[in-house]
């Protein structure tokens, strides 16, 4: 998920063929990026059928807006943003559940602002690749336990690698609101990880 860079000559040629309506170019684009976009949509929607629908929507919307692709970012980055947008549209179209609060997972403070419960000392994470990978998978699973209205901002920021401003744009909120959402989500994630990473954990 690189930052915007000028597209390669190869990409520029591909975009030319796409604009000319070359069917093989469309197919090539889907084959080149479809798997990645499907993974993005699955992370957001956690439903294979909906994710495939979202990827279809994403490509169709990309094909329609090819003229808007000015090469200001890499093709992959551009498609990534479009796929996130399509998946979020699907998510919003689902039956709206009331937004969940996560107060129980946030740190609690006393009247004058001291920690009500002293945070446990965390052990150093393992350096060993296997153990580290195992922790990362556990972290990833815990992220998916967060309520949707915190899970999505965190996924967009930490897993999809968007900037806070891009998260805000995708969610249609102010930058500050997006920043607070991500912060709360990380605090909640910290609480969920605490039993595992606290030094005196069994």
């Amino acid at each position, binding site marked *: 998920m690189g930052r915007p860079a000028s597209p390669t000559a190869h990409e520029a040629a591909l975009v030319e063929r796409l604009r000319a309506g070359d069917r093989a170019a469309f197919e090539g684009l889907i084959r080149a990026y479809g798997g*990645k976009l499907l993974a993005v949509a699955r992370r957001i929607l956690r439903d294979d059928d909906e994710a495939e629908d979202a990827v*279809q929507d994403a490509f169709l919307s990309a094909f329609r807006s090819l003229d808007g692709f000015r090469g200001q970012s890499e093709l992959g980055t551009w498609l990534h943003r479009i796929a996130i947008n399509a998946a979020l549209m699907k998510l919003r179209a689902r039956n709206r559940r009331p937004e969940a609060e996560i107060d129980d997972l946030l740190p609690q403070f006393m009247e*004058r602002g001291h920690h009500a419960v002293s*945070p446990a000392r965390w052990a150093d994470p393992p350096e060993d690749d296997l153990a580290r990978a195992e922790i*990362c998978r556990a972290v990833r699973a815990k992220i998916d336990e967060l309520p949707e209205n915190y899970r999505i901002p965190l996924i967009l920021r930490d897993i999809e690698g968007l900037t806070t401003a891009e998260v805000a744009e995708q969610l249609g909120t102010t930058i500050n609101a997006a920043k607070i959402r991500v912060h709360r989500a990380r605090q909640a994630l910290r609480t969920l990880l605490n039993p595992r990473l606290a030094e005196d954990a069994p």
Partner: protein
Amino acid sequence: MNCAEFKTGCKEYLEELFSPEERRPYDAHVAECPDCRSIVEKSARMSCRELAEFLDDYLDGALDADLRATFDEHVGICPDCEEYLRSYELTRSLSAESAAHDTPPEDVPEPLIEAILKARESP
């Protein structure tokens, strides 16, 4: 009262959870000990609750110099915030690192490719 004893009860003292009799030795220690007086002064400049709101900005290096100094000062006198900062920072890095351990992308299913191409051609 010595400094170690002061630090043990410092949180309860600052939260004013002690009875007047329990407070008295703390007040006396603060009056005579510049180190512990500085703990009281520093903790008045930023509370743990306030500090928690600045965690991301701090770790992103986005705090202005004054606020950053106040933040550092608080962490220096508050074992709770020192541990919280450390665990929060670790949470942030593990969260970002976990992206690489997600299910790797697979090839697009052929029927999906067909469906997309077909949908493009039908107006």
